């Protein structure tokens, strides 16, 4: 682990026993974990390169318990790291040595389904997929579908503003959350949004979604439900070069089509997926598109005609339209298994998540090949091509000294290039600890100070999810006074990590 975190508070470390006792008072039974071996599963999230044993883990079962835990921790200056299913790919749930992990996995009830208003109210520990399953019989679903949807929780989705392959057409989590009940670090409960389509005051709901657990702990979420489209159809389009594939993506959109999903894989990713699952991807192409359209049958048929025509005009080498629901799911199976497929051919891989303007895709791939040579590592690529969201998978072996460091440098190079091309550091995985120290690539000190002051509004003692998102260590009092002149900090020598 190479990332630096805020220095642990020795007083907190020394009073561990009394903290455990206080937490047991609030959450009786087995809801407090303090045995070393039982803490192990909480040391990392899905970004396993970073690990830290927490002080202890608390698993509340009610909003009231969350309030009491946070109030106590706030009064005693104890840090808190909220955690859902631990599927974050950016280290968003990485524990603090002197902090409590507040695991929300026991709050997993669906509280209300309101078909008239097309909403569901759920607790944060409900899994993403469980929401869709609960409303499927009535023909509804919850649209955002991150790849980890079997495991990942709604609370985590809200914290990270998660996307998925269908967010091109149906939006990210932020577009599908109507309301939140949130507990502040002070223990106060606030309600943001509602079943109504807008709310008075500042858009604190918009601010809370994607705030990576820095502003509050979500205890209830009001989700927007959508009606399941009648039909869906996918097509595999193979190209012997990347440029025409990128052009094909642009032309589909230029024709006024927003597909339900539009994914691209490069040759290494295609081969890895095909070796793993044998779903029938063509092996002799450099770029493979999976384009999915949905809606009434007539719409699918009409759009599929247009898409295949555009593919042919751009010189596609192969075009294969799914002839059945089975085949459509097979097309996706390869894409969705891209990560485990890469896991088979490399001891470790590192998944990156930047966004670029779509037109830069061919150039980006070219530059990535150069970087791969420079860093001496292989890379396979899957993209959400429709919205320019890249997921390069860097292959490395953690047991070879220096390879993880090289993988991290390679990743940083990719992300810097994303920003230089007019893109951003993260499209859907979040900043967490992973991209924290790259925030300066995108934002200057004035931009960041404005964001950090929002953190101070919600959590003035900066106890909630410390060390995440922001690269500089500022005290709130200092931020309040700070006037940053033309991007230059007045105190360039303050501690940073």
């Amino acid at each position, binding site marked *: 682990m190479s990332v630096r975190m805020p220095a642990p508070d020795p007083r907190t470390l020394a009073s561990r026993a009394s903290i455990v006792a206080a937490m047991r008072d609030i959450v009786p039974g087995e809801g407090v974990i303090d045995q070393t071996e039982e803490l192990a599963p909480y040391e990392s999230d899905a970004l396993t390169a970073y690990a830290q044993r927490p002080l202890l883990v608390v698993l509340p079962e009610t909003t009231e318990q969350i309030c009491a835990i946070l109030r106590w921790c706030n009064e005693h200056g104890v840090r808190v790291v909220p955690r859902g299913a631990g599927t974050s790919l950016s280290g968003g749930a990485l524990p603090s040595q002197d902090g409590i992990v507040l695991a929300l996995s026991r709050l997993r009830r669906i509280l209300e389904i309101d078909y008239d208003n097309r909403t569901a109210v759920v607790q944060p520990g409900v899994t993403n997929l469980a929401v869709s399953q609960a409303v499927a019989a*009535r*023909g*509804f679903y919850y649209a955002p579908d991150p790849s980890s949807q079997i495991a990942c929780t709604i609370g985590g989705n809200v914290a*990270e*503003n998660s*996307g998925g392959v269908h*967010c*091109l057409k149906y*939006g*990210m989590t*932020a*577009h599908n959350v109507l309301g939140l009940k949130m507990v*502040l670090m002070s223990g*106060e*409960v606030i309600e943001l949004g509602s*079943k*109504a*389509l*807008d*709310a008075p*005051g*500042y*858009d*604190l709901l*918009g*601010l809370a979604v994607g705030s990576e657990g820095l502003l509050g702990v979500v205890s209830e979420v009001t989700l927007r439900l959508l*009606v399941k489209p009648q039909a869906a159809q996918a097509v595999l389009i193979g190209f012997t070069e990347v440029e025409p594939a990128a052009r094909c993506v642009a032309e589909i*959109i230029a*024709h*006024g089509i*927003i597909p339900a999903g539009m994914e691209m894989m490069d040759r290494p990713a295609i081969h890895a997926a095909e070796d793993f699952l044998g779903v029938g991807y063509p092996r002799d192409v450099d770029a493979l598109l999976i384009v999915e359209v949905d*809606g*009434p049958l*007539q*719409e699918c048929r009409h*759009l599929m005609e247009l898409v295949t025509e555009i593919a042919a005009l751009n010189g596609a080498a192969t075009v294969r339209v799914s002839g059945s629901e089975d085949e459509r799911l097979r097309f996706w199976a390869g894409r969705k298994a891209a990560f485990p497929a890469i896991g088979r051919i490399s001891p470790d891989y590192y998944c990156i998540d930047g*966004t670029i*303007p*779509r*037109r830069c895709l061919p150039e980006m791939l070219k530059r990535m090949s150069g970087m791969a040579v420079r860093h001496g590592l292989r890379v396979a690529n899957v993209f959400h091509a429709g*919205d*320019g969201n890249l997921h390069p998978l860097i292959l490395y072996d953690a047991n070879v000294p220096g390879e993880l460091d090289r993988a991290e440098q390679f990743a940083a190079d990719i992300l810097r290039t994303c920003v230089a091309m*007019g893109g*951003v*550091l*993260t*499209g859907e995985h979040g*900043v967490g600890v992973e991209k924290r120290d790259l*925030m300066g690539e995108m934002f200057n000190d*004035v931009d*960041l100070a*404005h*964001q950090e002051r*929002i*953190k*101070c*509004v*919600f959590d003035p003692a900066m106890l909630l999810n410390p060390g995440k998102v922001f690269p500089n260590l500022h005290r709130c009092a200092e931020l*309040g006074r700070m006037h*940053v002149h033309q991007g230059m900090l007045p105190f360039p020598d303050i501690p940073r990590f």
Partner: protein
Amino acid sequence: MAQQQCHAPATAAQVEEAVAAAVAERRGLEIRGGGSKRLLRMPIEPAALLDMSGVSGITDYDPDELVLTARAGTPLVEIEAALGERQQMLAFEPFDHGPLFGAAPGRTTLGGIIAGNVSGSRRLSIGAARDHILGFTAVSGRGEALKGGGAVVKNVTGFDLPKLMTGSWGTLAVLITITMRVLPRPRTETTVLFRGLPDQAANRLMSAALALPAAVSAAAHLPSSESTAACSFTALRLEGFGPSVDARCRELLRALAPMSAGEVVTAQESNAFWRGMRTLDALPREGHVLWRISVPPALGWRVGESLASNGARYVYDWAGGLVWAAVPETALRSGGARIRAIARSLGGHAVLVRAPPALRESLLAGPPAVVDADQGLKVLHQRLKAAFDPQGILNPGVDLAGEL
């Protein structure tokens, strides 16, 4: 009355100068784009005018990327014309408040649309202005230039400042450039009309329509009114590619037939109907105060039911989730507190849009809307304002915390 001091910047640097000077002199600034919503939320404390209409023009438009960047003072009509040439649109259907106040149309600006989170009928299906903003540059009340968000559709880097700016009514920062996500304009549209339904039945029909896989993009209801002697209209709009719209239209008529028999209107009539919703053609202006009431969609009809005794006229948009109510000025007195209480009891809120200046204050007065549970929220609002604008320079007197 003393003449209002006026700044008319043409560049970002000049905006920064004007705000920095106001900060230094601790002097308020009223931020104005086209002025179309000025009467809706006017600063109530003396302030110099910061006229943003000169900070205008589209700076970047890439139709293939579905992204457009324009300066805050760019008139909406200019943006819509540029998008129209490429068969694209701002999908949330922003509209011009000017005509609601009897002003000439065409003055509203992108900055004003974002400051007010102005979203039209398609908000029901595709989200509000806040769901379509991607990034911005601005000068905060600290006199500092800042940026937020980015220029790509998918971005979760840092806090979502673009959403915070949207609907903040110029109280946190002066927007300079705004980057929006744009979408292809639907190739065809059609509207299915149902006549003669009472409010509750219409509300139920709209809910039923939205539970069908018909992708209804907008749903509105115009109740019958004694003064026009017309029967009520309930309208469902379908948009997209021709073959798809046709199929969905047939399915919708078939599935809703047990509730009411619908008829399909021409694309032209459909267009005219939804344009009329933007300017609230169906509601009286003279002698009427205008409220905007937002509630859970299925409960919209109950707002109407509660208001009817007041002699109010109203229309429903967002499948019942948005009620525009024109209340006779004569029926008022304690009216403001009552309307806010109705909205709150249904889980929503009410905003006073248009009222004569003399009435405005008394309508906004009354028992505080805030109940204990919201006190924490109110404090967060005050702290946020102080974080961005510690001296209260921007739009002084516009108090969003006071409206909770």
